[in-house]
Protein backbone atom coordinates (compact mmCIF):
# COMPACT_ATOMS: atom_id res chain seq x y z
CA UNK A 1 0.00 0.00 0.00
CA UNK A 2 1.25 3.47 -0.82
CA UNK A 3 0.25 4.84 2.56
CA UNK A 4 2.60 4.22 5.46
CA UNK A 5 1.32 1.59 7.81
CA UNK A 6 1.21 4.06 10.68
CA UNK A 7 -1.01 6.43 8.73
CA UNK A 8 -3.77 3.90 8.48
CA UNK A 9 -4.12 3.65 12.21
CA UNK A 10 -4.85 7.38 12.51
CA UNK A 11 -8.50 7.71 13.39
CA UNK A 12 -8.83 10.83 11.24
CA UNK A 13 -7.90 9.06 8.02
CA UNK A 14 -10.24 6.20 8.82
CA UNK A 15 -13.30 8.31 9.44
CA UNK A 16 -12.55 10.47 6.42
CA UNK A 17 -12.37 7.36 4.28
CA UNK A 18 -15.50 6.02 5.95
CA UNK A 19 -17.52 9.12 5.27
CA UNK A 20 -16.23 9.25 1.70
CA UNK A 21 -17.46 5.77 0.92
CA UNK A 22 -20.72 6.30 2.79
CA UNK A 23 -21.28 9.59 0.96
CA UNK A 24 -20.63 7.89 -2.37
CA UNK A 25 -23.00 5.05 -1.64
CA UNK A 26 -25.70 7.43 -0.41
CA UNK A 27 -25.54 8.97 -3.86
CA UNK A 28 -25.58 5.61 -5.58
CA UNK A 29 -28.50 4.50 -3.43
CA UNK A 30 -30.49 7.54 -4.52
CA UNK A 31 -29.71 6.90 -8.17
CA UNK A 32 -30.63 3.25 -7.84
CA UNK A 33 -33.86 4.17 -6.05
CA UNK A 34 -34.81 6.43 -8.95
CA UNK A 35 -34.25 3.63 -11.42
CA UNK A 36 -36.15 1.07 -9.36
CA UNK A 37 -39.03 3.43 -8.61
CA UNK A 38 -39.38 4.23 -12.26
CA UNK A 39 -39.36 0.53 -13.05
CA UNK A 40 -42.18 -0.02 -10.56
CA UNK A 41 -44.26 2.82 -11.98
CA UNK A 42 -43.83 1.38 -15.46
CA UNK A 43 -44.88 -2.07 -14.29
CA UNK A 44 -48.10 -0.58 -12.93
CA UNK A 45 -48.83 1.14 -16.24
CA UNK A 46 -48.04 -2.07 -18.05
CA UNK A 47 -50.51 -3.99 -15.90
CA UNK A 48 -53.21 -1.44 -16.58
CA UNK A 49 -52.42 -1.69 -20.28
CA UNK A 50 -52.73 -5.47 -20.14
CA UNK A 51 -56.03 -5.47 -18.28
CA UNK A 52 -57.63 -2.91 -20.55
CA UNK A 53 -56.30 -4.55 -23.68
CA UNK A 54 -57.75 -7.89 -22.65
CA UNK A 55 -61.10 -6.18 -22.05
CA UNK A 56 -60.96 -4.62 -25.49
CA UNK A 57 -60.28 -7.98 -27.08
CA UNK A 58 -63.27 -9.50 -25.30
CA UNK A 59 -65.39 -6.62 -26.51
CA UNK A 60 -64.27 -7.09 -30.10
CA UNK A 61 -65.03 -10.79 -29.96
CA UNK A 62 -68.70 -9.85 -29.64
CA UNK A 63 -68.62 -8.48 -33.19
CA UNK A 64 -71.65 -9.05 -35.37
CA UNK A 65 -72.55 -7.42 -38.68
CA UNK A 66 -75.35 -5.38 -37.09
CA UNK A 67 -73.37 -4.05 -34.16
CA UNK A 68 -70.13 -3.30 -35.99
CA UNK A 69 -70.26 0.50 -35.91
CA UNK A 70 -71.40 0.64 -32.32
CA UNK A 71 -68.69 -1.78 -31.35
CA UNK A 72 -65.97 0.17 -33.10
CA UNK A 73 -67.05 3.34 -31.31
CA UNK A 74 -66.83 1.59 -27.96
CA UNK A 75 -63.47 0.15 -29.00
CA UNK A 76 -62.14 3.58 -29.82
CA UNK A 77 -63.13 4.83 -26.38
CA UNK A 78 -61.35 1.84 -24.83
CA UNK A 79 -58.30 2.47 -26.96
CA UNK A 80 -58.21 6.04 -25.74
CA UNK A 81 -57.97 4.78 -22.18
CA UNK A 82 -55.28 2.26 -23.09
CA UNK A 83 -53.29 4.96 -24.82
CA UNK A 84 -53.37 7.00 -21.62
CA UNK A 85 -51.53 4.22 -19.80
CA UNK A 86 -49.06 3.74 -22.63
CA UNK A 87 -48.41 7.46 -22.76
CA UNK A 88 -47.48 7.30 -19.10
CA UNK A 89 -44.89 4.67 -19.99
CA UNK A 90 -43.69 6.81 -22.86
CA UNK A 91 -43.22 9.75 -20.50
CA UNK A 92 -41.30 7.60 -18.03
CA UNK A 93 -38.80 6.27 -20.58
CA UNK A 94 -38.44 9.61 -22.31
CA UNK A 95 -34.77 10.55 -22.13
CA UNK A 96 -34.08 7.35 -20.23
CA UNK A 97 -32.66 4.14 -21.53
CA UNK A 98 -35.71 2.58 -23.20
CA UNK A 99 -34.14 -0.86 -23.22
CA UNK A 100 -33.37 -0.81 -19.55
CA UNK A 101 -37.10 -0.86 -18.84
CA UNK A 102 -38.39 -3.10 -21.64
CA UNK A 103 -38.87 -6.05 -19.32
CA UNK A 104 -41.26 -3.93 -17.27
CA UNK A 105 -43.61 -3.14 -20.13
CA UNK A 106 -43.09 -5.78 -22.80
CA UNK A 107 -46.10 -7.89 -21.81
CA UNK A 108 -48.40 -4.90 -21.63
CA UNK A 109 -47.29 -3.72 -25.05
CA UNK A 110 -47.69 -7.17 -26.59
CA UNK A 111 -51.23 -7.36 -25.24
CA UNK A 112 -51.87 -3.88 -26.60
CA UNK A 113 -50.56 -4.82 -30.05
CA UNK A 114 -52.92 -7.78 -30.06
CA UNK A 115 -55.87 -5.57 -29.13
CA UNK A 116 -55.15 -2.66 -31.45
CA UNK A 117 -54.41 -4.91 -34.43
CA UNK A 118 -57.67 -6.76 -33.78
CA UNK A 119 -59.52 -3.45 -33.80
CA UNK A 120 -57.68 -2.34 -36.94
CA UNK A 121 -58.55 -5.51 -38.81
CA UNK A 122 -62.23 -5.19 -38.00
CA UNK A 123 -62.17 -1.57 -39.07
CA UNK A 124 -60.03 -1.82 -42.22
CA UNK A 125 -59.50 -5.50 -43.00
CA UNK A 126 -55.75 -4.89 -42.94
CA UNK A 127 -52.83 -5.68 -40.73
CA UNK A 128 -51.70 -2.69 -38.73
CA UNK A 129 -48.06 -1.71 -39.13
CA UNK A 130 -45.60 -0.76 -36.43
CA UNK A 131 -45.46 2.76 -37.82
CA UNK A 132 -49.22 3.16 -37.59
CA UNK A 133 -49.23 1.95 -33.99
CA UNK A 134 -46.40 4.30 -33.11
CA UNK A 135 -48.15 7.28 -34.66
CA UNK A 136 -51.38 6.43 -32.85
CA UNK A 137 -49.53 6.51 -29.57
CA UNK A 138 -47.69 9.69 -30.45
CA UNK A 139 -50.92 11.42 -31.46
CA UNK A 140 -52.58 10.54 -28.18
CA UNK A 141 -49.66 11.79 -26.10
CA UNK A 142 -50.15 15.27 -24.71
CA UNK A 143 -46.56 16.20 -25.51
CA UNK A 144 -46.48 14.17 -28.73
CA UNK A 145 -43.64 12.01 -27.43
CA UNK A 146 -42.40 9.13 -29.53
CA UNK A 147 -42.69 5.64 -28.16
CA UNK A 148 -40.94 2.81 -29.90
CA UNK A 149 -42.67 -0.50 -30.51
CA UNK A 150 -40.02 -3.16 -30.91
CA UNK A 151 -40.24 -5.76 -33.64
CA UNK A 152 -40.28 -8.41 -30.96
CA UNK A 153 -43.30 -6.98 -29.12
CA UNK A 154 -45.07 -6.38 -32.41
CA UNK A 155 -44.53 -9.88 -33.74
CA UNK A 156 -45.49 -11.55 -30.48
CA UNK A 157 -48.63 -9.44 -30.30
CA UNK A 158 -49.58 -10.34 -33.88
CA UNK A 159 -48.90 -14.00 -33.19
CA UNK A 160 -51.44 -13.83 -30.37
CA UNK A 161 -53.81 -11.99 -32.68
CA UNK A 162 -54.06 -15.02 -34.94
CA UNK A 163 -55.52 -16.96 -32.03
CA UNK A 164 -58.20 -14.34 -31.48
CA UNK A 165 -58.89 -14.24 -35.21
CA UNK A 166 -59.59 -17.96 -35.27
CA UNK A 167 -62.00 -17.52 -32.37
CA UNK A 168 -63.77 -14.75 -34.25
CA UNK A 169 -63.89 -16.94 -37.32
CA UNK A 170 -65.60 -19.69 -35.38
CA UNK A 171 -68.14 -17.19 -33.99
CA UNK A 172 -68.90 -16.04 -37.50
CA UNK A 173 -69.28 -19.58 -38.79
CA UNK A 174 -72.67 -19.72 -37.10
CA UNK A 175 -73.77 -16.32 -38.41
CA UNK A 176 -75.33 -15.22 -41.70
CA UNK A 177 -72.11 -13.82 -42.99
CA UNK A 178 -70.04 -16.92 -43.69
CA UNK A 179 -67.97 -15.03 -46.22
CA UNK A 180 -66.36 -13.11 -43.42
CA UNK A 181 -64.98 -16.40 -42.12
CA UNK A 182 -63.09 -16.83 -45.35
CA UNK A 183 -61.82 -13.28 -45.14
CA UNK A 184 -60.55 -13.92 -41.65
CA UNK A 185 -58.94 -17.20 -42.62
CA UNK A 186 -57.21 -15.63 -45.56
CA UNK A 187 -55.93 -12.88 -43.29
CA UNK A 188 -54.58 -15.33 -40.74
CA UNK A 189 -53.05 -17.49 -43.47
CA UNK A 190 -51.11 -14.51 -44.82
CA UNK A 191 -49.87 -13.62 -41.35
CA UNK A 192 -48.69 -17.15 -40.73
CA UNK A 193 -46.95 -17.13 -44.09
CA UNK A 194 -45.19 -13.94 -43.11
CA UNK A 195 -44.19 -15.53 -39.86
CA UNK A 196 -42.79 -18.60 -41.58
CA UNK A 197 -40.22 -16.47 -43.31
CA UNK A 198 -39.19 -14.78 -40.10
CA UNK A 199 -39.34 -17.70 -37.70
CA UNK A 200 -36.05 -18.85 -39.12
CA UNK A 201 -34.48 -15.93 -37.40
CA UNK A 202 -36.34 -15.82 -34.18
CA UNK A 203 -36.91 -18.80 -32.01
CA UNK A 204 -39.51 -17.02 -29.87
CA UNK A 205 -41.86 -16.53 -32.79
CA UNK A 206 -41.63 -20.11 -33.91
CA UNK A 207 -42.62 -21.16 -30.43
CA UNK A 208 -45.75 -19.08 -30.74
CA UNK A 209 -46.43 -20.40 -34.22
CA UNK A 210 -46.54 -23.97 -33.07
CA UNK A 211 -49.28 -23.00 -30.67
Amino acid at each position, binding site marked *: *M*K*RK*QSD*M*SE*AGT*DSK*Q*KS*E*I*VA*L*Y*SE*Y*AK*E*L*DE*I*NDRYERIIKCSRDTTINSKRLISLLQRLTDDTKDELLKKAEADLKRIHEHICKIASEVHQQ*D*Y*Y*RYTRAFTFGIQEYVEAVSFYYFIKT*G*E*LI*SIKTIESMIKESHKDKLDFRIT*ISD*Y*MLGIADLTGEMMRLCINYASSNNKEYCFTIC*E*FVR*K*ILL*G*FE*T*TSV*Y*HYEYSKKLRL
Partner: protein
Amino acid sequence: GINAEYGARVMESLFAEVNLALEKENLLREDIKKQVKELDNITRKQYSLLLQVHSNSERKKIEEVCAAVKATFSECATLLQTIASILPSGEQGKYHDHWKSTQTQLVFHAALMHFLQEGKLLTLPQARAFLFPNPTSISVDLEDYLMGIFNLPSELARFSVNSVIKGEYQQAEIIFQFVSELYTGFRLLNLKNDALRKRFDAVKYDVKKVEEVVYDLTLRGLLKKK
Protein backbone atom coordinates in the same frame (compact mmCIF):
# COMPACT_ATOMS: atom_id res chain seq x y z
CA GLY B 1 -60.69 -8.22 -55.31
CA ILE B 2 -58.33 -5.31 -55.69
CA ASN B 3 -58.49 -4.51 -52.00
CA ALA B 4 -57.42 -8.03 -51.12
CA GLU B 5 -54.48 -7.76 -53.47
CA TYR B 6 -53.46 -4.43 -51.99
CA GLY B 7 -53.84 -5.82 -48.50
CA ALA B 8 -51.68 -8.78 -49.44
CA ARG B 9 -48.96 -6.55 -50.83
CA VAL B 10 -49.04 -4.33 -47.75
CA MET B 11 -48.62 -7.36 -45.53
CA GLU B 12 -45.85 -8.76 -47.69
CA SER B 13 -43.84 -5.59 -47.55
CA LEU B 14 -44.48 -5.35 -43.82
CA PHE B 15 -42.99 -8.78 -43.19
CA ALA B 16 -40.21 -8.13 -45.66
CA GLU B 17 -39.24 -5.07 -43.64
CA VAL B 18 -39.37 -7.05 -40.41
CA ASN B 19 -37.23 -9.77 -41.95
CA LEU B 20 -34.64 -7.29 -43.09
CA ALA B 21 -34.46 -5.68 -39.67
CA LEU B 22 -34.07 -9.05 -37.96
CA GLU B 23 -31.34 -10.08 -40.38
CA LYS B 24 -29.47 -6.88 -39.70
CA GLU B 25 -29.85 -7.38 -35.98
CA ASN B 26 -28.48 -10.91 -36.12
CA LEU B 27 -25.42 -9.81 -38.07
CA LEU B 28 -24.84 -7.02 -35.60
CA ARG B 29 -25.07 -9.38 -32.66
CA GLU B 30 -22.50 -11.65 -34.31
CA ASP B 31 -20.15 -8.69 -34.68
CA ILE B 32 -20.63 -7.64 -31.08
CA LYS B 33 -20.01 -11.18 -29.87
CA LYS B 34 -16.72 -11.23 -31.76
CA GLN B 35 -15.54 -8.09 -30.02
CA VAL B 36 -16.73 -9.32 -26.64
CA LYS B 37 -14.85 -12.58 -27.14
CA GLU B 38 -11.61 -10.63 -27.58
CA LEU B 39 -12.53 -8.48 -24.60
CA ASP B 40 -13.04 -11.60 -22.50
CA ASN B 41 -9.57 -12.84 -23.48
CA ILE B 42 -8.08 -9.65 -22.12
CA THR B 43 -10.21 -9.82 -18.99
CA ARG B 44 -8.94 -13.32 -18.28
CA LYS B 45 -5.36 -12.16 -18.81
CA GLN B 46 -5.96 -9.28 -16.40
CA TYR B 47 -7.28 -11.57 -13.72
CA SER B 48 -4.33 -13.95 -13.92
CA LEU B 49 -2.01 -10.96 -13.62
CA LEU B 50 -3.90 -9.65 -10.60
CA LEU B 51 -3.87 -13.06 -8.91
CA GLN B 52 -0.10 -12.77 -8.68
CA VAL B 53 -0.38 -10.36 -5.77
CA HIS B 54 -1.68 -13.18 -3.61
CA SER B 55 1.68 -14.89 -3.69
CA ASN B 56 3.86 -11.79 -3.77
CA SER B 57 2.52 -8.57 -2.35
CA GLU B 58 5.71 -6.55 -2.14
CA ARG B 59 5.18 -2.95 -3.20
CA LYS B 60 7.41 -3.50 -6.21
CA LYS B 61 5.42 -6.51 -7.39
CA ILE B 62 2.11 -4.68 -6.93
CA GLU B 63 3.34 -1.75 -9.02
CA GLU B 64 4.57 -4.16 -11.66
CA VAL B 65 1.26 -6.04 -11.81
CA CYS B 66 -0.82 -2.85 -11.87
CA ALA B 67 1.30 -1.39 -14.65
CA ALA B 68 0.80 -4.54 -16.73
CA VAL B 69 -2.95 -4.54 -16.09
CA LYS B 70 -3.22 -0.83 -16.86
CA ALA B 71 -1.59 -1.49 -20.21
CA THR B 72 -4.27 -4.04 -21.10
CA PHE B 73 -6.95 -1.48 -20.28
CA SER B 74 -6.02 0.55 -23.32
CA GLU B 75 -6.72 -2.50 -25.47
CA CYS B 76 -10.07 -2.83 -23.69
CA ALA B 77 -10.92 0.79 -24.34
CA THR B 78 -10.27 0.26 -28.05
CA LEU B 79 -12.51 -2.82 -28.20
CA LEU B 80 -15.27 -1.08 -26.25
CA GLN B 81 -15.01 1.87 -28.59
CA THR B 82 -15.34 -0.49 -31.55
CA ILE B 83 -18.48 -1.97 -30.03
CA ALA B 84 -19.87 1.52 -29.44
CA SER B 85 -19.18 2.46 -33.04
CA ILE B 86 -21.17 -0.42 -34.54
CA LEU B 87 -24.24 0.10 -32.35
CA PRO B 88 -27.15 1.91 -34.01
CA SER B 89 -27.81 5.17 -32.24
CA GLY B 90 -30.49 5.04 -29.58
CA GLU B 91 -30.28 1.25 -29.35
CA GLN B 92 -27.20 0.82 -27.22
CA GLY B 93 -29.23 -0.57 -24.33
CA LYS B 94 -30.75 -3.22 -26.58
CA TYR B 95 -27.42 -5.00 -26.96
CA HIS B 96 -25.98 -4.21 -23.56
CA ASP B 97 -26.43 -7.76 -22.28
CA HIS B 98 -23.68 -8.94 -24.63
CA TRP B 99 -20.94 -7.13 -22.76
CA LYS B 100 -22.63 -6.62 -19.40
CA SER B 101 -20.73 -9.30 -17.48
CA THR B 102 -17.43 -8.46 -19.16
CA GLN B 103 -17.90 -4.82 -18.19
CA THR B 104 -18.64 -5.86 -14.62
CA GLN B 105 -15.39 -7.85 -14.54
CA LEU B 106 -13.44 -4.89 -15.89
CA VAL B 107 -14.85 -2.61 -13.20
CA PHE B 108 -13.89 -5.19 -10.58
CA HIS B 109 -10.34 -5.41 -11.91
CA ALA B 110 -9.97 -1.65 -12.08
CA ALA B 111 -11.29 -1.30 -8.53
CA LEU B 112 -8.94 -3.99 -7.26
CA MET B 113 -6.00 -2.28 -8.92
CA HIS B 114 -7.07 1.08 -7.53
CA PHE B 115 -7.25 -0.31 -4.03
CA LEU B 116 -3.86 -2.02 -4.29
CA GLN B 117 -2.25 1.21 -5.44
CA GLU B 118 -4.21 3.94 -3.67
CA GLY B 119 -6.01 2.14 -0.87
CA LYS B 120 -9.26 3.79 -1.92
CA LEU B 121 -12.53 2.88 -3.56
CA LEU B 122 -12.77 3.42 -7.28
CA THR B 123 -15.73 5.75 -7.82
CA LEU B 124 -18.26 5.47 -10.63
CA PRO B 125 -16.84 8.44 -12.57
CA GLN B 126 -13.36 6.96 -12.17
CA ALA B 127 -14.56 3.58 -13.40
CA ARG B 128 -16.12 5.27 -16.41
CA ALA B 129 -12.89 7.14 -17.17
CA PHE B 130 -10.95 3.90 -16.85
CA LEU B 131 -13.03 1.90 -19.30
CA PHE B 132 -13.94 4.77 -21.59
CA PRO B 133 -11.10 7.29 -21.63
CA ASN B 134 -12.70 8.86 -24.68
CA PRO B 135 -16.42 9.70 -24.64
CA THR B 136 -18.49 7.13 -26.50
CA SER B 137 -22.15 6.28 -26.86
CA ILE B 138 -21.89 3.61 -24.19
CA SER B 139 -20.63 3.87 -20.64
CA VAL B 140 -20.54 2.02 -17.35
CA ASP B 141 -24.02 2.05 -15.94
CA LEU B 142 -24.71 2.14 -12.23
CA GLU B 143 -25.71 -1.49 -11.87
CA ASP B 144 -22.65 -2.84 -13.67
CA TYR B 145 -20.47 -0.66 -11.48
CA LEU B 146 -22.17 -1.78 -8.26
CA MET B 147 -21.92 -5.42 -9.28
CA GLY B 148 -18.25 -5.00 -10.10
CA ILE B 149 -17.56 -3.52 -6.67
CA PHE B 150 -19.55 -6.32 -5.01
CA ASN B 151 -16.84 -8.65 -6.29
CA LEU B 152 -14.15 -6.78 -4.39
CA PRO B 153 -14.64 -8.13 -0.84
CA SER B 154 -14.17 -11.79 -1.76
CA GLU B 155 -10.89 -11.12 -3.54
CA LEU B 156 -9.71 -8.93 -0.68
CA ALA B 157 -10.66 -11.60 1.84
CA ARG B 158 -8.34 -13.97 0.04
CA PHE B 159 -5.69 -11.30 -0.08
CA SER B 160 -6.08 -10.74 3.65
CA VAL B 161 -5.51 -14.41 4.43
CA ASN B 162 -2.50 -14.58 2.12
CA SER B 163 -1.06 -11.44 3.66
CA VAL B 164 -1.15 -13.05 7.08
CA ILE B 165 0.50 -16.15 5.68
CA LYS B 166 3.35 -13.94 4.54
CA GLY B 167 3.45 -12.20 7.89
CA GLU B 168 2.08 -8.90 6.55
CA TYR B 169 -0.34 -8.39 9.41
CA GLN B 170 -0.98 -4.69 8.92
CA GLN B 171 -2.22 -5.41 5.42
CA ALA B 172 -4.93 -7.58 6.92
CA GLU B 173 -5.99 -4.74 9.18
CA ILE B 174 -6.05 -2.28 6.29
CA ILE B 175 -8.24 -4.64 4.29
CA PHE B 176 -10.51 -5.10 7.28
CA GLN B 177 -11.04 -1.34 7.57
CA PHE B 178 -11.71 -0.99 3.88
CA VAL B 179 -14.06 -3.92 3.53
CA SER B 180 -16.03 -2.90 6.64
CA GLU B 181 -16.45 0.61 5.29
CA LEU B 182 -17.44 -0.80 1.93
CA TYR B 183 -20.03 -3.02 3.53
CA THR B 184 -21.46 -0.06 5.42
CA GLY B 185 -21.85 1.66 2.09
CA PHE B 186 -23.37 -1.42 0.45
CA ARG B 187 -26.02 -1.61 3.12
CA LEU B 188 -27.31 1.83 2.15
CA LEU B 189 -28.52 0.45 -1.16
CA ASN B 190 -32.15 -0.53 -1.50
CA LEU B 191 -31.84 -3.66 -3.59
CA LYS B 192 -34.64 -5.54 -5.29
CA ASN B 193 -34.71 -9.32 -5.48
CA ASP B 194 -32.36 -9.44 -8.44
CA ALA B 195 -28.83 -10.46 -9.36
CA LEU B 196 -27.39 -7.50 -7.46
CA ARG B 197 -29.23 -8.53 -4.33
CA LYS B 198 -28.02 -12.11 -4.59
CA ARG B 199 -24.43 -10.98 -4.97
CA PHE B 200 -24.82 -8.59 -2.06
CA ASP B 201 -26.12 -11.36 0.19
CA ALA B 202 -22.88 -13.29 -0.36
CA VAL B 203 -20.73 -10.29 0.62
CA LYS B 204 -21.42 -10.70 4.33
CA TYR B 205 -19.46 -13.95 4.33
CA ASP B 206 -16.44 -12.16 2.92
CA VAL B 207 -16.80 -9.47 5.56
CA LYS B 208 -16.95 -12.17 8.22
CA LYS B 209 -13.82 -13.82 6.85
CA VAL B 210 -11.90 -10.55 6.90
CA GLU B 211 -13.10 -9.87 10.47
CA GLU B 212 -12.04 -13.32 11.58
CA VAL B 213 -8.53 -12.83 10.23
CA VAL B 214 -8.12 -9.63 12.22
CA TYR B 215 -9.74 -11.23 15.26
CA ASP B 216 -7.18 -14.01 15.09
CA LEU B 217 -4.32 -11.58 14.78
CA THR B 218 -5.64 -9.46 17.63
CA LEU B 219 -5.90 -12.50 19.91
CA ARG B 220 -2.33 -13.39 19.19
CA GLY B 221 -1.24 -9.79 19.79
CA LEU B 222 0.20 -9.59 16.30
CA LEU B 223 -1.32 -6.23 15.40
CA LYS B 224 0.40 -2.98 16.36
CA LYS B 225 -1.46 -1.18 19.10
CA LYS B 226 -3.02 2.14 18.09
